[in-house]
């Protein structure tokens, strides 16, 4: 990912910063510029508390390997990993990995909390991208 893009995403990736419509109160993650519900343009920053539950999940097993070895990403080294759609306590859903558990501990409906982890590390020279993952509570 391009450096300016990673930098722009820091509030979203580090702190689950989304937005709240000042007209109808709808909450969004990630942040939106237009309220999907009422069409209002004035949305304010809203930080989500990081608690949620698993709506559905899968276990990614395809070895995504790069013969050139330069672009090994964290995910690629961590096969198999759990990918889930999580519904945050406040309502919005997001896609993230579930870490620090064995594959058979994951189930639809289980509660999770956010953790701060490495997301991508393109190469030994490149920038490290940090962001949100979740673990079972």
């Amino acid at each position: 990912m391009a450096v300016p893009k990673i930098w722009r995403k820091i509030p979203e990736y580090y702190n689950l910063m989304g937005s709240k419509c000042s007209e109808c109160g709808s909450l969004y993650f990630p942040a939106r510029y237009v309220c999907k519900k009422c069409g209002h343009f004035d949305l304010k920053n809203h930080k989500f508390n990081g608690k949620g539950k698993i709506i559905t999940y899968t276990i990614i097993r395809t070895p995504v390997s790069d013969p050139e070895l330069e672009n090994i990403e964290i995910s690629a080294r961590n096969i198999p990993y759990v990918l889930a759609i999580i519904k945050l306590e406040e309502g919005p859903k997001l896609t993230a990995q579930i870490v620090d558990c064995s594959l058979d501990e994951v189930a639809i409906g289980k509660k999770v909390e956010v953790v701060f982890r490495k997301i991508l590390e393109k190469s030994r020279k490149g920038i490290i991208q940090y962001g949100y993952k979740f673990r079972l509570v």
Partner: protein
Amino acid sequence: MRKVAIIGVGMTKFGHHWDRDLVNLAVEAGSKSIRDANLHQKDIQALYIGTMSGGLFINQEHLGSMISDYSGFKNIPSTRVEAACASGGLALRQAYLDIKSGNSDIVVAGGVEKMTDIGSYSITKVLATASDTEREAAFGATFPGLYAMMAKLHMYKYKTTEEQLAYVSVKNHKNALYNKYAQFQKKISVDDVLNSPLIADPLKLLDASPITDGAAAVILASEKKARELCDTPVWISGSGHATDSISLHDRDDLLTLRASVAAAKQAYLQSKIQPKDIQMAEVHDCFTIAELLALEDLGFVKKGESGKFIETGQTEIGGKIPINTSGGLKAKGHPVGATGIAQVIEAVLQLRGDAGKRNTNAEIALTHNVGGSGGTSVVHILRR
């Protein structure tokens, strides 16, 4: 409003074409469709070409211009259309609207993709650009992963089984045995599918459509031209196009592709028919679960009942509603941009009675093309 018909079709074999480049494939399909319509290059007034990513796959954009030139067209308007895996279907719709509006009389709509010049890791990355790259792909989501999550939830909520999913693959492979353009002409069993390696639980290798190179093209004509030039015009009686959130997680119901539901509704309304009137359909089976969801979203069965319905055999050739008689994306292959057009070609052949051993005697057919995990859907209804 004007009626629009398809008067010519042409496609390449789908597979790994190491010795062919993208333009070469596109021109083969285009030329075949022009000859099938008994026309000459100079009769074509516009070109719409659907392809997901010339830039990322072969480092070439501006394909509208390039393919038009290499096809032998002179200075015609040429538009590259993109909607991820729905690029082909959308190209057809743009061509259809061009004629319907009275702007053109004879237009070619094509789709092409050349995927195999880059390594498989890179292919997965390119395909992931059809998802929300910053909120899905960046966090480890792959396309098999997204559809796998839909499958897992469908199994949790509606008790759909892995065997029911596998059955989709088995059927489509069986159908492809009679399709000389298909990438795979190999019979497989439910056990073969269940024993194939897991890609993203519960989806396995044989639940997934392959990497493919290929091209397909159709010639569309206004009613007046169609009746002049063709004995067996196939009419586009309904066309629908809708979008939904690009990301799977932003949908209220993860198991309904609202884009498909909305696009189908538009097409049914325009055709003045109901789902039960459809006699064969080519649906978007990028993964087996996608075919099951399509049966529900298109209104052929109630939500949640697709698994049981598949087991009845009614979606086989000879059944009540044959699905993916061409072999579908799974066995025919999925050169991303070409798929939407190839689906329409199968529908046309069926309606002409030219599908050989795959013939279903259908008189009303439906094609269903989806982009990404459901961000875009294009549905067409065709009839004799």
